[in-house]
């Protein structure tokens, strides 16, 4: 016989049986990737929030009855600008203040004599900011009231909250990975049970454990790789879609953006490989244990 002959796979193709497992693994990888993207988004948002809060102090200027709020705001801005640690000052217009009140007072124009507090934003040196007490002292004798909103007072709380969300997302990703590993280990044991005839025949013709383990390991690595590729690509697509759709709502409610950064795009294909690796390792451990239990 001269025809070329390729050895058939020693483990029979199990396309019908592998499909549900592939789907479960792909879904788990999808969830893990979304959790990681969520964690990365929270991380970025937290950094942005805290850096902004650290470098800004807001003054609410409330003019006395019958006085010009415009003049009061301008004067407050000028005085505050002279304090050490203040880099620049931005006096917000009355329209800007009204826009902030609109969700509570409705869209109708406010009467001109309505006492709308005016806002003055101080951009400060985060390393050497002016103390809130120093600002309050500066305006102690002013003809208008100044309330200092020191954003840094709640920046720490915000930072702690975002760190909690971050660790929660990372924990969620780890849990999903562990669930995927457990599912693969279970499936590997089931596969060994189904193909006990193969394992036994191989044993009896002198195949060492590593040969048999290698067959199952290779099969589950490829399964994990396929599931990982499908799950991570789906997660990437979903993250882009959610980021685009939820962008506006996220901006209003200060939610972290799910739009993946370049880092996530590079890391996600690696998720497929990691999925294959997790599948191979958990299958290997399951098969080695089962072989030792079954054949002494």
């Amino acid at each position, binding site marked *: 016989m001269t025809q070329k002959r390729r050895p058939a796979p020693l483990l029979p193709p199990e396309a019908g049986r592998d499909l549900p497992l592939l789907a479960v693994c792909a879904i788990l990888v999808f969830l893990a990737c979304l959790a990681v993207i969520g964690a990365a988004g929270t991380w970025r948002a937290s950094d942005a929030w805290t850096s902004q809060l650290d470098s800004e102090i807001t003054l609410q200027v409330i003019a006395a009855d019958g006085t010009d709020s415009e003049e009061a705001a301008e004067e407050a801005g000028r005085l505050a600008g002279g304090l050490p640690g203040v880099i620049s000052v931005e006096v917000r217009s009355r329209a800007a203040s009204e826009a902030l009140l609109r969700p509570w007072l409705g869209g109708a124009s406010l009467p001109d004599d309505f006492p709308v507090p005016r806002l003055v934003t101080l951009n400060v040196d985060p390393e050497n900011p002016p103390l809130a007490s120093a600002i309050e002292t500066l305006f102690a004798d002013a003809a208008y009231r100044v309330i200092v909103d020191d954003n840094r007072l709640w920046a720490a709380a915000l930072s702690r909250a975002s760190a909690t969300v971050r660790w929660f997302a990372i924990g969620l990703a780890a849990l999903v990975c562990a669930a995927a590993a457990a599912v693969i280990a279970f499936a590997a044991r089931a596969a060994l049970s189904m193909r006990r005839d193969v394992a036994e025949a191989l044993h*009896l013709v002198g195949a060492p454990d590593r040969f048999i383990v290698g067959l199952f390991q290779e099969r589950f690595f490829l399964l994990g790789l396929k599931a990982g590729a499908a799950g991570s690509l789906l997660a990437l697509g979903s993250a882009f879609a959610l980021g685009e759709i939820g962008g506006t709502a996220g901006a209003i409610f200060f939610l972290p953006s799910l739009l993946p950064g370049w880092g996530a795009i590079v890391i996600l294909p690696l998720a497929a490989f990691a999925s294959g690796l997790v599948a191979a390792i958990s299958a290997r451990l399951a098969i080695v244990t089962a072989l030792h239990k079954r054949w002494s």
Partner: protein
Amino acid sequence: MDQTHADTGLDLDPDAPAIRFDTVGMRYGRGPEVLSDVSFELARGSFQFLTGPSGAGKTSLLRLIYLAERPSRGLISLFGQDTSIMGRDDLPALRRRIGVVFQDFRLLSHLSVFDNVALPLRVAGQRVAGYREDIVELLNWVGLGHQVDALPATLSGGEQQRAAIARAVVSRPEILIADEPTGNVDPDMARRLLRLFVELNRLGTTVLIASHDISLIRSMKVPVLELADGRLITKTRTA
């Protein structure tokens, strides 16, 4: 055929008998002993039959030889190596020196006849180009030349048995164990298969065949081990 045995890496005694049982007992789980105080030796290159009524323990004895089971008591040596002190990792190398024809054939249903027969060589790390011709030649010899690519399910019982025999002998093992190897074939094919075993034996393989077939055993004029109720009642009687 041009197959070589993989180096076992074991310290085997070249002068020791191929198989030695010393007061071996065996039970499955907590059940009764299926083999009791079995002691015998098979010299290297010997040809021997194993006979006895159904349930006498023939298959259990063969399972002990091809290391599918461990004895409950007693000692078993293969090539002078005490199998009770061998580690799990040493067993595959020893198994590769033993060819087995199972009573229920144990062919893998998803592999063709060719791939089933090639299994021991594949496990030993040989490449298909190195054994393709040998396997086709062997399959022609056992009358399966026209069934090279057939799946076991499409073969008759006799054809499956011949494929199982081809798999057992393909790596030219040092010990060949066969459990009722001619039970499903016609007398002509039985004689042909026995000639294959005899030929292997002439080349140095130790052959042990378990059979009920008294006429077959008598035709061979070789020593017989006879089991009854798990005990060896005749060791080297020539039928």
